[in-house]
């Protein structure tokens, strides 16, 4: 199955009914699939902390939610992750484009990449790193784990996972 379709199918099979997204070109395909999915309400956010707020509200309203965003967002959302998602103990799957890893063409992205895992570790956020497409076989289990433990959980997906950036 196409990787974008597989990700969205795992979301649907785990009863995720609302997904908020902040775009990244690596995530364009999966965002298109989310948008086309009849079982998921897709709500684009203007900034990632806004999106995490919407997810928190949806969870309290009775719907499972998830956020799709770039790893630069970890820098943006530290306060929200700590004082909202973690403080009130809410589940939040975060499908994250791990920019700045191998095959990255833009040097500035590396500056955030080197801090990404350290920040997630400091925040005690369970973190999974998808490097090969076969790694996504664990997505279903990771989603179940997230909703079991009521924590934000990060799924970092790098350029190798997404097939690179084309000829470079």
């Amino acid at each position, binding site marked *: 199955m196409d990787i974008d379709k597989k990700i969205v199918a795992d979301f649907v099979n785990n009863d995720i009914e609302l997904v908020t997204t902040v775009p990244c070109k690596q995530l364009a395909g999966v965002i298109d699939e989310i948008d086309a999915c009849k079982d998921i309400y897709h709500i684009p956010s203007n900034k990632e*902390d806004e999106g995490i*707020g919407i997810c928190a509200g949806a969870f309290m309203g009775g719907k499972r939610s998830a956020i799709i965003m770039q790893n630069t967002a970890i820098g943006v959302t530290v306060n929200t992750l700590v004082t909202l998602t973690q403080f009130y103990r809410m589940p939040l799957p975060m499908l994250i484009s791990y920019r700045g890893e191998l095959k990255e063409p833009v040097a500035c992205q590396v500056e955030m990449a080197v801090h990404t895992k350290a920040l997630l570790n400091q925040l005690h956020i369970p973190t999974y790193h998808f490097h090969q497409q076969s790694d996504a076989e664990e997505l279903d289990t990771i989603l179940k784990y997230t909703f079991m433990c009521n924590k934000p959980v990060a799924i970092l997906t790098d350029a190798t996972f997404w097939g690179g950036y084309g000829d470079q």
Partner: protein
Amino acid sequence: MIRSDVLKELVPVISDQFVVCNIGLPSQELHMLDDQPTNFYMLGTMGLASSIGLGVALAQDKKVISIDGDGSVLTNFGTLPTIANNVADNFILLIIDNGSYGSTGDQPTYAGKKTSLAAVAKACGCETVIECQAEDCADVMREAIAGDKMTIIVCKCESGNIKVPVITKDPVVIRDRFMTAIREANT
């Protein structure tokens, strides 16, 4: 009238509604005036009352009121286009606009100067935007609740604070009783 006066007049109107209340003094005042399981108090995360309220409204059918402040909306300006483009007719955003960052010592906000939050909300595409004076807020809210239309209310009031105790309730308790109340109301 200052914000706590506005809240006092609002309590009889919103007491049986689901309310997401802004961080700091607004939550502390509402908690002191009318603590209810149907109130979700933000203990951190300035700016997200409107986003959380929208999320609750999109996820279920009961009416949801977010009580926000001008300073907090300025912090999360991106919320207004998101609200405008994801219409939830069970959602009311009340922005109590006292032109200042009340919880941090009444420093002036731009909303108290040149910036009109009602005009910004309209420009963002929000269709029902009502600016009112503090004295009229309870009536405007009553009509908005009866109206079944997503509504943004910008209530202009004076800046100033009363002494209120901090909220010591555990956040998980606040969240759990709010969720339980929503679940029961929707079954």
